[in-house]
């Protein structure tokens, strides 16, 4: 749990509310998180290989969110469970079956039989596999509006950010120089690439500022 200790790696956003949050912040946050609370994978459902959702910061199995507020921060986590079946394991099982079939019938199985067997083996291995579970902390300073998603994977950051936007009806703006410039309403002309530095061609150059 990086927020509590360990590596400090996070992506930063600024939250913009569509509507003013209600005065009962704890209830608002708890309900929003509960709307997309994590539900474990059902191993019987073959089509589900991945499950995502919000969980409590200090207990990845809990989704009550009672203690979500700490000081000026809302603290929770984004959990991602995935079942992965190694292709090498499937291949090994299928090859064992092909050898057995060939020995029994005197000829190897056909292409369609192999494909069917591959799917059966994949499902069997999937039933036995334990989901790999990862949680990624989220800290939201409710006073400053800054949201930090403590994850190294850009894919996870974007997925968690989208979930937060949907659950809380907020827009999360990345905190980049480009975004900061847009928020400061700097003129477009001032934000074009500096050709002398980036080395792009004349097409990307801004109009010459004759007053400079």
């Amino acid at each position, binding site marked *: 749990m990086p*927020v509590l200790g360990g590596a*400090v*790696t*996070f992506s930063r956003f600024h939250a913009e509310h569509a509507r003013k949050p209600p005065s009962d912040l704890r209830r608002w946050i708890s309900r929003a998180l509960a709307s997309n609370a994590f539900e474990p994978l059902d191993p019987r459902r073959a089509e589900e290989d991945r499950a995502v959702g919000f969980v409590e910061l200090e207990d990845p199995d809990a989704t009550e969110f009672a203690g979500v507020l700490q000081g000026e921060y809302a603290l929770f986590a984004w959990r991602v469970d995935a079942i992965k079946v190694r292709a090498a394991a499937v291949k090994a099982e299928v090859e064992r079956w092909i050898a057995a079939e060939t020995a029994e019938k005197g000829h190897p199985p056909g292409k369609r039989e192999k494909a069917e067997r591959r799917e059966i083996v994949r499902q069997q291995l999937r039933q036995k596999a334990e989901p790999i579970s990862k949680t990624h902390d989220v800290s939201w*300073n409710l006073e400053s509006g800054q949201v930090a998603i403590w994850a190294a994977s*850009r894919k996870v950051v974007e997925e968690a950010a989208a979930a937060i936007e949907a659950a809380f009806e907020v827009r999360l703006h990345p905190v980049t120089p*480009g975004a900061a*410039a847009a928020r400061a309403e700097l003129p477009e002309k001032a934000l074009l690439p500096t050709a002398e*530095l980036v*080395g792009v061609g004349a097409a990307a150059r801004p109009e010459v500022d004759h007053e400079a």
Partner: protein
Amino acid sequence: MRREQARAEAAFLRGDAGVDGRATDEETRDEAEVEKDKAREQLFRGRTYLGREFLTWLLWRSESTAAVTALEDVDVEVIFTGRLTLRGLAGDVVELVARGAAAPYAEQVRRALDVGLLVHQARLRITHGEQVFEATLDAEFLDVRAAKLPELLTEEEDDRLLERLALTGKLSALVDALVGTFLEIRASPTWRRKVVPAMKAWMGEPGAAEKASKDVEAPSGRPARAGRRVG
């Protein structure tokens, strides 16, 4: 023989070979061109170029060791330390990585900057009063990676959590202050008129740092202090 003939006929029917049996000229894109297109796309996506200009400007400013900006009336000083990743479009080179304790300030890095390979990712040491932070920043998202925070002062677990969060908030604020100072200069006429020429001079010539630092005025019109790089 018949099998070879069958193979040749099949290749011809697929369009992989011409009547003479030689491979046809497919319209395949040169790998280098594909790479350059990707580099160009990344440069403009989300205005990554602004992030690279920011980190490159910051590298230039940090060489003087003077404060780059201030936060809450306390100076913010920056040093680049360790690994530096440069990216851009410089002929066939789209990325260079420099490693070494003093690598960010090496002449080889300045030469690469001069041809358009700007700072894309860097490890920074940011000093704010008595507090020292380290972090790796990237130009595209300004994500904070592998940051080192000042030592926590509180003992209680709950207090330590809040103190840790406060320090990460402080680190964010320091990065925002640096970006804010950069954008103020970037959007002013001083950028093209003075700062960019000074940066190019620093990139292109050995010993250019000293000369450049004396030539640049602050955007507000304050004269530069001797040895202090402003702009």
